[in-house]
């Protein structure tokens, strides 16, 4: 097999609604994303970028066309196949979606325990290490309710990264962060790509981080209208 992409989409169409109300959201999308790259999806709201993200992230059923994720075809995949694929992904949501009853460290631990719990001490150490990386070493035992918005988002980033995912999907991860911590988060994702060959796909409106991407894809009305490399990376 020649060069394989971690994400390959071809002839992808997606529809919402039934019957008369049925509306096409994605039109014949063809997209290959390279391993270790940081790709940003842009576009006005309703352009389909979040739909593309959820289709690639095994969160939404592929109706028509093909999405190959890490070599596995998603169209027609079983629930068990999807669940085991999801374990190789990391998700960072716009809302942090932390569990309010778990401490910062326990929330991060959830990202590891999905792979089993063979070595709890090692897992705790890994969770602490990642929290340290996002600058929250002293907030380990805090409940989300006692953390600021930015701190919560950094815990969510730590949770997504702790299991060394093959691909990270992020939806507006910097929206709740100030410029500096936004930069830090994206820099972390970028460094991961370079050192561990982690592929990142990010939906964002945040112009402050565009220059850090390897590739910027703009969607409009469910179609790719521009696919470019930012000047600074050249």
């Amino acid at each position, binding site marked *: 097999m020649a060069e394989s992409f971690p994400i390959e989409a071809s002839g992808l169409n997606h529809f919402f609604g039934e019957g008369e109300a049925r509306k096409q959201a994605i039109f014949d999308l063809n997209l290959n994303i390279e391993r270790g790259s940081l790709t940003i999806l842009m576009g006005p709201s309703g352009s389909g970028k979040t739909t593309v993200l959820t289709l690639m*992230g095994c969160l939404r059923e592929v109706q028509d066309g093909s999405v190959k994720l890490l070599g596995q075809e998603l169209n027609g995949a079983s629930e068990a196949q999807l669940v085991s694929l999801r374990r190789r992904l990391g998700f960072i*949501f716009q809302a942090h979606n932390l569990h309010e*009853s778990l401490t910062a460290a326990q929330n991060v631990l959830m990202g590891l325990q999905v792979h089993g719990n063979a070595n709890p001490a090692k897992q705790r150490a890994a969770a602490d290490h990642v929290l340290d990386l996002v600058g929250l070493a002293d907030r380990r035992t805090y409940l989300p309710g006692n953390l600021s918005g930015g701190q919560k988002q950094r815990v969510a980033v730590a949770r997504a990264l702790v299991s060394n995912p093959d691909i990270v999907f992020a939806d507006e991860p910097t929206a709740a962060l100030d410029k500096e911590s936004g930069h830090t988060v994206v820099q972390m994702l970028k460094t991961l790509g370079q050192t561990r060959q982690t592929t990142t796909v990010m*939906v964002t409106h945040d112009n402050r981080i565009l220059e850090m991407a390897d590739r910027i894809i703009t969607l409009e009305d469910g179609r790719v209208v521009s696919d470019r490399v930012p000047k600074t990376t050249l």
Partner: protein
Amino acid sequence: MSRLLTNLFGRLPIGWLQLSHNKARLVAAVSGVSFATLLVFMQLGIMGALNSSTVAPYGLLSADIVISSEEGNTLTDAGEIARARMFQALGVPGVADATPLYIGNLPFTLDDGSTVSLLSFGFDVSQPEFVSPSIAASFGSLTIENTVILDRDTRGMPASVIDALTAGGRYEFEANGNTLVAVGTMNIGGGFLADGMLAMSDQTFLRSFPARTSSAPNHILLNVDDGVSVDTVVERLRGALPSANVKVLAADASAQADLDFMSSERPTGIIFGFGVFMGILVGLVIVYQVLSTDVADHLGEYATFKAMGYGQPFFLGIVFEEAIVLAVFGFIPGLIVSIGLYAGLRAVTGLPVEMDASRAILVFLGTLTACTISGAIATRRLAAADPADLF
């Protein structure tokens, strides 16, 4: 607690952390389960007291087989049977001995003017082998006319009288126009059946109940020869005696039949059974309410976990973990309060309301089962956690 559960489950105890995070909900849920447990314990306690008072009079007897009239319902609520049956029974091989037993309710007016009813047992005093060894000591004195043995738990009887009797004293009283003399005490406990109990000779019995005759006792008690199976003799008796109007039962089968009658035919048994059912229903509804609200409140988090790759068994595990936590935490206070209330009830009513280990274990298993069922119903809400909605 959290560390213990982590080791137990091999993962973070999310269910416990979720429940303990919302203290108000935890307290409400635990008190709900406790209340349901308490309700069931109280019903079972009173039902247990009913059952033990139903079979208590058997403690007075020492017989292998009881022959009674088909018309009767229980040992103490019996019809009359011809004494001629006793002689027929004695002719059956394997029957060692037989005696008539007379039973009646004797009204007795207390010093304060209230009337209590004393369940009276008339024995043939020449056959002490048919009474329990527990009253054998005073049984001999019943040969004297109008003497009786009085139950210690007789309602309305001053403790001083009972104490004096136990110490060897006498207590004279009038009942049904007849003067009786208590010469000893026994420990039977009537509870629901009567206010008290008396053991007396058949002669004293017939004097106290002028309408009864010696030819029509309520039961005939039999003992079988050594080494002969009771069941075999019961079969032979059923063949030898006319089947119409005569009931032949081994003593333990007779006690069991009395229990069955009280729990299924008498309204009391049905009422307590209904009470148990209501308690279970209340518990089910409360636990379901709490767990399904809890699932609904955490749909966002569950959807996130789904996106991270957690499968359905993980979520079922959380809900069942919560159900078990509620069952355990609700059961313990329910048990403690019930033990206290049992003691109170025993003191006030004199009924034999006792907590025994088998009932506690049974109720605990019932609580676990009910909580698990509620949990299982609540898990249906999990389907609403859709990770695609998170973006």
